[in-house]
């Protein structure tokens, strides 16, 4: 069984991670920028990668920049933002064909490095400001992106749960920032923030593919040289405990009610009971053999989807389900009963073994994709731990029934959010 092997080296201002594998027909570069999640910077950070990917000093128009990527056998350039615990992470990735599978043998990897370097270090800037047109266009798109969460009720209800549950914590911020802060951004203020982020963010570059490690290192050294830095740590996220459950009900014109329930797990990635938490979540609601799926969907026919998932760096568990508006009480009760069952150790050895096998399978499948490899390895950067995939799987194997029940007992209900349709007859 091939488990990933990662080589990590300190470069100028960032860490280079190389994962050499022959299984892909492309090579992938993933650039990560991490800083604490804060109200003052979240919107700037959400806009920044979109401006960077739109134009650069050599490719001042998006059409030119994209044409160049097309010429490189459709190299892809993709930016993304994520919340990892109380951190806000910018991802910029470039994926490029491995020329050994093309009839044209021109080497492409170095071109991908050059391109990434261009995007990051030679932005379209004049007189201490980003190109005004680019910034204005991307501000408009960002506003639409923030607004669009409202139109997708599944995403909306999940966002609303987090907003209600983590009120007054940075984690309540939307990953794309705040709509009312977009207009305040100017080409100057964004450029100033760009310089700050490039000087202070924790930076990591992942290179995945059939690449020569020495080549990757020399390209990275030659093309990307940034100041040394000591990354800022986010304030401890703390697991605020509510005295009584926070119930929030919101009415909208929807046919299906969206039930989202948030719990505090008090366990984060790297804790000794993190593995037990993973197995707990798997038995409880992570899969189609889990208690939630069996009891809410298969037995009671209340839902099409019902699942739980963990936010590993924040210590949260979220249950989500789409139900008929009139079935709220029944669904909430079944979900509560299933959690009680977990706390009482009311699950079989077989459920436990089955769940471990499925989680292990899921981890191994995740690292079959370049993006998945980065996702798994990046947990260590966020947490400051060094846990290999093998350790993760071995530790999970050792988890006992008692440990799972103990971990379940730590899990406390925080907020029940329900997005419900308007009452009939209105």
């Amino acid at each position, binding site marked *: 069984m091939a488990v990933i092997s990662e080589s990590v080296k300190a470069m100028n201002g960032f860490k280079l991670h190389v994962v050499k594998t022959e299984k892909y027909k492309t090579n992938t570069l993933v650039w990560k920028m991490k800083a604490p999640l804060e109200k003052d910077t979240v919107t700037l950070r959400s806009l920044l990668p979109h401006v960077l990917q739109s134009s650069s000093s050599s490719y001042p128009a998006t059409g030119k920049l994209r044409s160049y990527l097309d010429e490189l056998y459709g190299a892809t350039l993709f930016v993304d933002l994520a919340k990892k615990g109380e951190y806000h992470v910018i991802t910029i990735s470039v994926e490029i064909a491995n020329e050994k599978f093309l009839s044209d043998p021109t080497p492409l990897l170095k071109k991908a490095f050059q391109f990434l370097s261009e995007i990051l270090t030679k932005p379209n800037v004049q007189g201490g400001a980003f190109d005004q047109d680019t910034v204005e266009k991307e501000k408009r798109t960002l506003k639409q992106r923030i607004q669009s969460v409202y139109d*997708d009720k599944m995403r909306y209800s999940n966002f609303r749960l987090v907003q209600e549950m983590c009120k007054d914590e940075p984690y309540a911020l939307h990953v794309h920032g705040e709509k009312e802060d977009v207009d305040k951004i100017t080409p100057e203020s964004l450029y100033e923030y760009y310089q700050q982020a490039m000087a202070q963010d924790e930076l990591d570059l992942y290179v995945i593919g059939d690449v020569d490690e020495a080549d990757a290192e020399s390209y990275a050294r030659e093309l990307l040289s940034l100041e040394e830095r000591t990354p800022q740590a986010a304030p401890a996220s703390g697991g605020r405990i509510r005295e009584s459950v926070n119930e929030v009900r919101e009415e909208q014109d*929807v046919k299906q009610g969206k039930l989202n329930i948030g719990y505090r797990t008090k366990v984060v990635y790297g804790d000794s009971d993190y593995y037990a938490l993973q197995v707990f979540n798997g038995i409880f609601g992570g899969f189609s053999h889990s208690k939630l799926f069996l009891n809410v969907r298969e037995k009671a026919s209340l839902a099409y989807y019902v699942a739980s998932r963990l936010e590993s760096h924040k210590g949260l568990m979220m249950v989500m389900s789409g139900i008929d508006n009139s079935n709220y009480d029944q669904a909430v009760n079944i979900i509560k009963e299933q959690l009680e069952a977990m706390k009482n150790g009311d699950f079989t050895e077989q459920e436990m073994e089955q769940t471990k096998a499925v989680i292990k399978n899921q981890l191994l*499948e995740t690292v079959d994709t370049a993006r998945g490899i980065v996702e798994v390895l990046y947990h260590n950067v966020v947490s400051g731990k060094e846990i290999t995939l093998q350790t993760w799987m071995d530790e999970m194997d050792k988890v006992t029934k008692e440990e799972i029940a103990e971990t379940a007992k730590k899990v406390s209900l925080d907020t029940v959010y329900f997005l419900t349709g308007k009452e009939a007859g209105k």
Partner: protein
Amino acid sequence: MEKITFDQLQEELYYENLENGLDVYVLPKKGFNKTYATFTTKYGSIDNHFLPPGKDDFVNVPDGIAHFLEHKLFEKEDGDVFQQFSKQGASANAFTSFTRTAYLFSSTSNVELNLETLIDFVQDPYFTEKTVEKEKGIIGQEITMYDDNPDWRLYFGLIENMYKNHPVKIDIAGTIESISHITKDMLYECYETFYHPSNMLLFIVGPVDPDQIMSQVRTNQSKKDYKEMPEIKRQFEEEPAEAAEKKKVLEMNVQTSKCLVGIKSSNANQSGKEMLKNELSLNVLLDILFGKSSEHYSSLYNEGLIDDTFSFDYTQEQGFGFAMVGGDTNDPDRLADTLQKMLLDAREKGAISQETLDRTKKKKIGAFLRAVNSPEYIANQFTRYAFNEMDLFDVVPTLESITLEDVENAAGHLISEERFTVCQVVPKK
């Protein structure tokens, strides 16, 4: 067992047509942890009017029944198959499209056992009135979920506009009303018609030994008694060339409007190499017109008519086909007009340059390499191609062979004002 080698891609494909008619393909992928297998029948939501084996009369079945059957196949007398897969460390799933129903698993261990489970559960239906009734609540929630989804409503709204009679316009899951009529006997009738091995394809991709896999499947199938099946007879009503409706506006609980422009295809009865060339030419055309490096994309984006939800696609199967372009917008009417004008202009001689074509072909070739990193893509797309008598591994050579004339011809056939249609979702007043 036949072995087919693709030198440029450095892949090998193994194939056998079994005695009962089942097509089996194995693509070994070294270095991957996961094995992914799909067991697919050429039976989807459009197959609602057919002749059941041994009967004299065609039947019409309720909308959504292929998808309903997909759900119900997972349930057995002794519990549900999801449980069994997860006991074996696998994750299982299924999906129903217009023309296919696929059952699949992926696993990094117990591959042999999981493959046996996959084949056996699909070939052993167990439908009862009670379990059929229970499923109506679950699928009812699935339908309601899609009813609230503006992108889904927009997509199906556009297809409904295009087709007057063809069942592609019916939502794959049906409606709460239509599924209420489904009975266990209807499920058996559909099953008997469409789940014969000669109408199915099994694809296995992963770090596997093709000899061992093939012999396992052969042994499994030889134990089952399948009678020879006559060719399946499906019926479709005559479909006019033009779009059934020119425009539809759906008011929904959204903040941002959405707009799609669709074109109903005129070349929908193709298969094999002809279809592959047409489909790829049209994909190249749309990329030239609306890809991120195109002038149109820049001008639409600069004007604020589109954002990063903008997309375009061409879909074709035997009997129907359509192109669609659009996304979220602040001005759905102006976007609709602008896109239609851009499409009409694309028919003019000289609208596309050789240089742009060459660049776009390179882009598409690179995109294919990226796609074949994914075992899921290979298995699902290979099956789709095979059901249309095309070969997935012909994509790169066919792309390389596409000329300016091919793209112009494809554009000339596709683009015609009478086959244009528009669907919009706008905020409820």
